[in-house]
């Protein structure tokens, strides 16, 4: 019984990890390649969810909606890059933080003006709306498995893209030394734009995929953004592989810590104190993990070689 619960929670942790990875992949590249702190990355996740909700409602089909939402999220990311971010690459980090924070506020308010303050919902596509029994009394929605599967597939594709293709090579080179890449005749501005647009699309994809299980609402990306920063710091800034491993680690630690922490503590202290401590400790676990990783590897698990 307890073992099945462990399996189910591991699956839950994996799903959170995959989601974090989809958002973190873009963020770590933008941060690593362009040395640009983009707090507004969580907003792109929210935009993806809203676009998916809107197009799904229009077309009546989630996959058509997704097919329309992805290029829209890409275009939106490119537009933001062109209008705002491009002008901030040479400024210091504080300016970037201020400007991108302003974008969070503006866009959170804008989605409310356009779609209203009440949360929206997206139905699970019919083909995947079923559930399978993973443990007695608990059905596991097939859609969550779809999220895990598609996230893992994207991780593999992204890994191949970054390590085996020419554009991936340029991205890696850019993460190591952008000036040198530029001096060798590569249009670094264009490279930045591609990386940025792609990152925005991945975050948008994550938002669209969770729309059927989470409510779509203003500010939905803000909480996730903090965890995403934890992920890229643990993984090593600029490393897609690091982001993947760190995302799965954070997802598992967070989920398993929340559900089994109090139970484990009960073995060493009395129940009331255990539930009190477990409650306080659970939200801290990911940050303790980050502190521990940074203690042993100050640049993260897989830092880009400088």
């Amino acid at each position, binding site marked *: *019984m*307890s073992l099945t*619960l462990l399996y*189910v*929670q591991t699956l*839950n*942790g994996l*799903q*959170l990890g995959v989601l974090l990875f989809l958002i973190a992949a873009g963020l770590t590249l933008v941060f690593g390649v362009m040395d640009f702190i983009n707090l507004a990355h969580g907003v792109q996740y929210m935009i993806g969810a809203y676009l998916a909700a809107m197009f799904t409602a229009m077309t009546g089909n989630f996959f058509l909606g997704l097919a329309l939402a992805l290029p829209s999220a890409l275009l939106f990311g490119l537009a933001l890059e062109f209008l705002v971010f491009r002008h901030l690459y040479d400024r210091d980090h504080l300016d970037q933080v201020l400007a991108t924070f302003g974008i969070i506020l503006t866009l959170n*308010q804008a989605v*409310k003006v356009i779609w*209203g*303050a*009440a*949360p*929206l*919902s997206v139905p*699970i596509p019919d083909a995947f709306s079923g*559930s399978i029994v993973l*443990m*007695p*009394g*608990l*059905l*596991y*929605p097939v*859609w*969550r498995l779809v999220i895990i599967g598609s996230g893992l597939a994207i991780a593999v594709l992204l890994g191949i893209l970054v390590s085996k293709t020419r554009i991936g090579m340029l991205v890696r080179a850019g993460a190591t030394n952008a000036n040198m890449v530029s001096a060798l005749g590569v249009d670094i501005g264009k490279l930045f734009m591609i990386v940025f647009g792609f990152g925005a699309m991945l975050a948008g994809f994550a938002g669209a995929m969770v729309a059927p*299980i*989470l*409510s779509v*609402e*203003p*500010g*939905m990306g803000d*909480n996730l953004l903090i965890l995403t920063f934890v992920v890229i710091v643990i993984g090593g800034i600029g490393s897609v592989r690091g982001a993947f491993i760190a995302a799965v680690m954070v997802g598992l630690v967070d*989920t398993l810590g*929340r*559900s089994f922490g109090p139970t484990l503590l009960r073995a060493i202290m009395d129940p009331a104190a255990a*539930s009190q401590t477990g*409650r306080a400790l*659970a*939200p801290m676990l990911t940050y303790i993990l980050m502190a521990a990783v940074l203690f042993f590897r100050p640049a993260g698990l897989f830092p880009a070689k400088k």
Partner: protein
Amino acid sequence: MISKAKTLLPLLALTLLSGTAFGQEKLKVGVMVTLSGPSAVLGQQARDGFNLAVKQLGGKLGGVETEVVVVDDELKPDVAVGKVKGLLERDGVQFVVGPIFSNVLQAIHKPVTDSNAFLISPNAGTSNFAGAQCHPNFYVTSYQNDQVHEVLGKYAQDKGFKKLFLMAPNYQAGKDSLAGVKRHFKGEVASEVYTPLGQLDFSAELAQIAAAKPDAVFAFMPGGMGVNLVRQYRQAGLASIPFLSAFTVDESTLPAQKEAAVGFFGGANWAPDMKNPQNEAFVKAYEAAYNSVPGTYAMQAYDAALLIDSAVKSAGGKVSDRNAVRAGLKKGDIKSLRGNFKMGLNGYPIQDFYLVQVVARPDGKFATSLRDKIFDNYVDVYAKDCKPAN
């Protein structure tokens, strides 16, 4: 220059105040609710409910021409204090109606009750102001916060549930909520789970529920958290376990929860299908004007307008006669949308509480519907600590 401005300001305020006092033909009400952020929909309901009442009364409360100033507290206590001072000093309002959230109430209570205005809360009703810190300038048209949670605890106890699984966000209101449930529920608590405030994915908690196999689940998950929990609860196939909740399935979240919430239980002092003529007219007018189903937030703000109306009327339209207005507020002589309504000595209502259940209406919308009456003329447990000053 600065010192001159300092002496001028109170003078200016004085002239403004006396202006209204002599004229007596103008009543100013400041409505302070949350209109931005994820919880904005609650504030919108309260604002719309209040405005609807003023409109139906011909733009007059107590027969006095009324101007309503709406401000957004942004769900930030510090912002709220600044803005409420603006309402009191710049706009010279005689009533402040608000807020939605208890933490904002804690911040604006003193500035308003210390001033020349009355504070009417259409939603937040904290324990401290119901008990030892009750104040003659503060009135509530909703409930004492604990009471809604107590409804579900009492229901679980009466229904004979043996084992209850409790869930709430990890902050003060969450702890108060579970304490309220346990005040009446004497059976076994399978587990008390506190989740981080703002958590949106409950897969880990749902697996724990499935493992614990409780007779019923109680959840306090307001706003977007509730939308997610309810949909995921249904998706996880747990709907055969009764779902009891407070502030988790109501008219503000149902448009997003839809079918997923049908059959789930909540506790309330009212539901849109309550049978009395004034309520039927209200629900019809609200739906026509705002194209959404009113929740308790709208109903309580509507009643707040009725309360001001009755108090000003009983003072003969003399808004400046504060003692007469206060006497009217204390009487609470209104035809409330919830039917049975009396104002308690501590300024909190004495009313009935019901178990409500989510239903799909024939027009495709979703609403809560009255089921059992759980408490009659229920006085909150803190009222006995209130020693009214006058």
